[in-house]
């Protein structure tokens, strides 16, 4: 393994803080506050929506790979 590039290591530390900031965004504040009732109801639908978006987005619209051809498509068919 070669020596890491220190600039990149600093960027990685920054990216770690970004993960903490995103996953903890509404957990940072110490002030006591409660979610409005309608937000609480709305959030009930968030987990399944997030999962469905990941699953369907992953299956329904796969990334094009360079040089990759769909099986059965004519050899020189343009993509999209």
């Amino acid at each position, binding site marked *: 393994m070669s020596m890491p590039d220190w600039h990149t290591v600093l960027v990685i530390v920054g990216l770690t803080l970004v993960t*903490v900031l995103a996953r903890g965004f509404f957990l940072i504040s110490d002030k006591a506050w409660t979610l409005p009732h309608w937000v609480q109801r709305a959030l009930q639908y968030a987990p399944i929506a997030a999962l469905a978006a990941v699953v369907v987005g992953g299956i329904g619209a796969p990334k094009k790979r360079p040089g990759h051809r769909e099986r059965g498509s004519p050899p020189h068919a343009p993509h999209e």
Partner: protein
Amino acid sequence: MFFLRSNYRHPEFRVGMREFQGLAPGIAAWGLMTGVAMVKSGMGMVEALLLSVLVFAGSSQLAAVPLILAAAPVWVILATAFCVNLRFVIFSLHLRPYLAHLGRWQRLGHGYFTADLSYVLFIRRYSQPATDATGRKAQEAYLAGNDMVNWLAWVSCSVAGVFLANLIPQQWGLGFAGILCLVGILCSLASTRLRVLSAVVAGAAAVASYALPLKLNILVAIAAAVAACVAVEKLAPTRAEAALP
């Protein structure tokens, strides 16, 4: 957090671990894919290992790698990663009432370790925050159990992916395998008509907005699905509540 004694000694911790086990193969496949992809795109091994172990968020890692290699300005890299991570901001809003009794560092620690699937599984088991101390402790321990299996599967397999990158062909379709592992839990969440609607709207919106950069289609999908469900709830409250036969 799973390394706290009060969490890992709690019986709910084991329940959380057990229930997450079914999803671990999906996380493992994703971790492996991410490790391989980072090295194949030209990332150094040490940097790739640090990314997986510290950043601990596959989609933002994969978004950041080409930018790092292209020597993009640091703020561009960080802003891109934050945009890709925006769904976690919604999750943190949802998790707040469950964790509000803890100190700030503990809240942030739980937030950091709670990725997509541990969040989904946690909310599936506990649809409401506990009202007493015993219940809160149990919920926290369950979340920590989820998080530990998730973390172990992710870290071990992405480290393996980094080391084995030159042996694993990317054509294996590991990402696809990871996605297939999620179908089961998706079905288990679809317990009411409105949740089915949420999934359908989210899926359609995710495909329709696929061209958006930074994985913003996921965010659009969540917003569209939640808005649709809230609207239907308002218009037809009793029918919407009905559970599936």
